[in-house]
């Protein structure tokens, strides 16, 4: 009997392998996202500092990271650093480093944009009430900044999750790579397997990203 393509997913441990691949994807993306949010917030605040040297440094960093394809950054960190300084970095650490560097730059720019978009009279009316700079930032500027950041940062998270598929080039097997391996191994038996496997990968990505977007939508509506 000719198997339907769908059963490729349930043959042997195929589905479990896909989930393991998803776990790698999630680990790399969520750890990098977490670190990027911390460093990105600091970087964004640094970008609003009115000092020429600080601004030049921030500009250089942001644009360097933006111009470099993530692919090149991965090569650079995984192979370059290892060669240059004889430090052996695992693929896993390299991936985290690269995605954190990238996420920090992008998140920083979002944070900077949100901070400068707060109208100056918000600072002034808070100052007129006798609040210190720290109090103004903590109670007036930061909460408004966070609300403005929800939509763009969720966008960034999902972008980062999807881009982690690049780590395959430094030898990591995440969800997409796992899918390709399954397809290759079953090419003869399941000629239409690719459709089903990629479909499953799509559904998995969706299941991860959808709750995040929904949560963001909720928060936005609540805080509108």
């Amino acid at each position, binding site marked *: 009997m000719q198997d339907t393509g769908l059963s490729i997913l349930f043959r042997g441990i195929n589905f479990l392998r896909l989930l393991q691949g998803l776990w790698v994807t999630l680990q790399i993306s969520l750890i990098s996202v977490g670190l990027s949010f911390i460093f990105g917030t600091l970087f964004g605040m640094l970008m609003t500092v009115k000092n020429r040297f600080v601004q030049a440094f921030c500009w250089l960093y942001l644009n360097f990271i933006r111009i470099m394809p993530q692919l090149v950054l991965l090569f650079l960190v995984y192979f370059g650093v290892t060669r240059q300084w004889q430090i052996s970095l695992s693929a896993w650490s390299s991936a985290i480093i690269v995605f954190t560097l990238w996420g920090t730059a992008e998140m920083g720019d979002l944070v900077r944009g949100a901070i400068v978009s707060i109208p100056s*009279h*918000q600072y*002034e*009316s808070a100052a*007129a009430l*006798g*609040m210190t700079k720290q109090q103004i930032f903590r109670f*007036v500027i930061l909460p*408004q900044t966070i609300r403005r950041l929800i939509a763009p940062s969720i966008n960034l998270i999902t972008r980062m999750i999807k881009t982690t598929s690049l780590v395959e080039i430094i030898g990591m097997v995440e969800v997409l790579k796992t899918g390709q391996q399954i397809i290759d191994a079953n090419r003869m038996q399941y000629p239409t397997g690719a459709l089903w496997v990629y479909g499953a990968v799509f559904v998995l990505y969706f299941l991860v990203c959808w709750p995040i977007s929904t949560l963001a939508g909720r928060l936005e509506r609540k805080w509108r």
Partner: protein
Amino acid sequence: MTDEILLSVKDLVKSYEGTSEVLNGISLDIHKGEVVVVLGPSGCGKSTLLRCMNGLEEYQSGSITLDGEKITKNGANMTALRQRIGMVFQSYELFPHLSIQDNITLAPVQVQKVPKEQAQAEAERLLERVDLLDKRTAYPRQLSGGQKQRVAIVRALAMHPEVMLFDEVTAALDPEMVREVLDVMLTLAEQGMTMVIVTHEMNFARAVADRIVFIDGGVIVEETDPETFFEHPSTERAKQFLKTFTFEKKA
């Protein structure tokens, strides 16, 4: 009104980066309990004067003192001084992420360390006075312009300032909302609050002012009681200014 001088401006000179002097030697004493209305053509520096009085702008020379303490933008005790000077701006600048109640209690609780319950009770008492008690859990976006300005006044009052500065607080309002805000200010004046008011509402200025200060070209051109200013202005510039508020049918 008493003889005690609360806020004193001496020979104030102020220019912005790249502009000539906006204020060119302003001297003005505000007495305790006095209501001073500052008038003048658009761009003459009324807002600038008020912003200097609250330490929001730097100035080039002269001095501004509250009870003898010097007010400068980056002065060491500026946050302490600003608590004693309330200010309400033209644009409604409530904090959009906080409820009306929290807008009012934020500074008393965080800055003056007033216990939360006490600050809330005070907020309710003040909201009651401006007829907005039912809005205390609402958010600024749910309020009309006039309601927002009344809350802004209450928010400043919650700090128990010794003097209040008002910068054209009705200028951005729809005409039917102007009255409710001006009434609040009139009541404040009756209760003896020291106030410096910039306004384009001439009838209101006349009703509320103990003294009119007319500024033009960066200097005080005329300084007198409202009756004299509106009925017998002594300078040509004041006459011209007042003319812009009257309309005559063309023949």
